[in-house]
């Protein structure tokens, strides 16, 4: 009974808000509806309406997928200090971070589903009734770790919020083991996603042991960037108190991660360009163009520039402590890494093809619209989750049984 009331009250809180809140939800819903309609166009015509081809057989969808798994994994950066080091200030916002992980994993899963040629056969992945090629296929691993991560990040906040809603103390022995599992799980989702790419000797651009570490480093830069921006917004639009110490911890983590990430990029550039063997063709295409084709070149230099400006801002203490410059650095790093490990990572893997053909990929309006729809869906999901989480955390949303209501 209590659980049903909890969900009911939670949903009611999600649907309660000032006019600006509703305008925001409406705007996001419009984008979601538009994206769904564009997906229907894709579903009824086939993936031919995308810019993908036999030459470049993964595109914008998988690029967003790779990036979003990193955002999801980055929630661990709040989980560890909150539950292991018992940082009270971070514990106050950890559920917001886990809400972000839920939204990011959902988006990542949706990006894979819209990329499928036969979404009607998704059930073939379900063990027993279908056949999941586990543990051989890395994609099978990804299916398991992503759905597991989604469940973990739903279960922990659900339990903690429900306890708070009922005015009970959450049982440390119940949730702590799950928290520990979820920490390792967070690293695993992004490692598995990196292995999905690096497992292919056919694609020398990805076939490097550095890809896993690079994925983690870039996730720990882009993730905190997004969390900082989000917390600043939470401060603006709600009465929820976010301690400045949370922001400065995240900014420090982000600084180090961004430095490591840039170092990794440099290491890759050196290894490939010093001798320029056949394996360097893809990175040559990415940074300098190949055989007259260079549509990604301006993007990657742009991304690199953004990341370098961001890291410079973050390394200068007064600038990192200034709200405005810190937020600028966060936006720059977020966009920079979105390009670098989205399109900048996925597309060059296919150029040139294993038979040496150079064929360029440009996403179509359908792909861009569907992707916008998924992003809007994720933001919408996060908005309503955060709304309910904050209300419960502030103690505004409490369980009241009928008797106490009458006595009031």
């Amino acid at each position: 009974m209590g659980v049903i009331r909890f969900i009911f009250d939670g949903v009611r809180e999600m649907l309660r808000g000032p006019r600006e809140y509703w305008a925001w939800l409406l705007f996001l819903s419009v984008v979601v509806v538009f994206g769904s309609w564009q997906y229907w166009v894709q579903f009824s015509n086939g993936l031919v309406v995308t810019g993908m081809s036999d030459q470049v057989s993964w595109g914008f969808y998988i690029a967003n997928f790779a990036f979003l798994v990193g955002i999801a994994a980055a929630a661990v950066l709040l989980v560890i200090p909150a539950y292991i080091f018992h940082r009270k200030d971070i514990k106050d916002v950890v559920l917001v971070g886990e809400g972000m992980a839920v939204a990011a994993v959902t988006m990542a899963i949706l990006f894979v589903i819209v990329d499928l040629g036969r979404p009607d056969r998704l059930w073939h992945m379900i063990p027993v009734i279908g056949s999941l090629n586990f543990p051989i296929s890395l994609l099978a691993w990804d299916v398991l770790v992503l759905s597991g991560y989604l469940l973990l990040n739903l279960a922990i906040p659900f339990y903690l919020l429900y306890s708070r809603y009922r005015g009970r103390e959450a049982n440390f022995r119940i949730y702590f083991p799950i928290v520990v599992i979820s920490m390792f799980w967070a690293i695993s989702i992004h490692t598995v996603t990196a292995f999905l790419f690096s497992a292919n000797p056919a694609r020398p651009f990805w076939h490097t042991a550095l890809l896993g570490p690079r994925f983690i480093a870039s996730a720990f830069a882009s993730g905190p960037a997004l969390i900082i921006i989000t917390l600043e917004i939470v401060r603006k639009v709600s009465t929820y108190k976010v301690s400045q110490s949370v922001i400065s911890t995240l900014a420090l983590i982000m600084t180090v991660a961004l430095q490591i990430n840039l170092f990794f990029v440099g290491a890759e550039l050196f290894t490939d360009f010093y001798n320029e063997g056949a394996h360097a063709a893809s990175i040559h295409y990415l940074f300098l163009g190949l055989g007259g084709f260079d549509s990604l070149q301006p993007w990657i230099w742009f991304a690199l520039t953004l990341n370098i400006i961001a890291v410079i801002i973050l390394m200068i203490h007064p600038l990192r402590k200034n709200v405005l410059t810190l937020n600028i650095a966060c936006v720059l790093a977020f966009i920079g890494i979105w390009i670098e490990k989205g399109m900048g990572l996925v597309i060059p893997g296919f150029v040139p093809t294993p038979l040496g053909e150079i064929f360029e990929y440009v996403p179509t309006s359908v792909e861009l619209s569907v992707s916008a729809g998924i992003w809007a869906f994720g933001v919408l999901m996060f908005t309503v989750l955060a709304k309910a989480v904050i209300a419960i955390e502030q103690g505004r949303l409490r369980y009241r049984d009928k008797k106490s209501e009458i006595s009031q």
Partner: protein
Amino acid sequence: MSKDPGSDDRGKFDKARRNFLRGLGMGTAAAAAQPAWGGDTLSDTFADFFQKHYQRMTSEEITETLERIERKAESRYGVEISCENTPPQPGVVFGYAINISRCKGYRDCVDACVQENNLGRDSQVQYIRVLQMDKGDSNLEHSEHYYDPETVPVEGKYYLPVQCMQCDDPPCVKACPVDATWMEPDGIVVVDYDWCIGCRYCMTACPYWARHFNWTTPEIPAEEMNTDTHFLGNRPRPRGVVEKCHFCIQRTRKGRQPACMEACPTGARIFGNLLDPDSEIRYVLQNKQVFRLKEDLGTEPKFWYFSD
């Protein structure tokens, strides 16, 4: 089942009525467009959706499925096809070898393959790619993919046909998340087109660019349809799934040559049973200097190249 027999020679009205009924049967308004699941009657659509993995079907289920495939081909293309399930022959593992000093780049193999294997004409899928290479250079990145076959052989060039190598340790099979592709006992790597979910991870894993995706529903003119088909081979494919060269499984399991070998005007292609010590392919492997493409990746292709 609810499809009326002899509907082919009826008039336009009947065709329209059939389309209308088909639309009702599926409960969708989109009767004009071929639905993504290529469904026909309601019962066939259900049977399609719940069709089991090829390797898990009983022999009765396979028979039913083959009949359904034939029915669907008739309603989709207006052609009566026969879809078979010829099993692998015991003691046979197929291998291929190409004499690159004989290949002149005429691309007759490519055309024969398109015809034989019912490849989508509008989508222009081709299982074989013949690369025009500069003599003295074997770097694939310098190869010409779109040369004019009318002008061959060009002075100073040689030709390298590439298709599925039927690797003995196939990276595509490892990649597939749902076991929709596997190696048969006769060494042919096949795809269950009705099980593939279209994630294209196998295309990413293949070092030979041998796998192709149906970005749209493959269109084949009725008069060009090859009606001798195999479940794991050249039967009509749906949209949204991956396909590849299967050594003409519908021919070779019956002791015939693959279409590309039959079509080759220069005799550059040699196909046969690797387990038969008297086969021509074994003679080539024992007496010629052979090499394989990208052998360093450890995929163990069953496809060799040699020269005189």
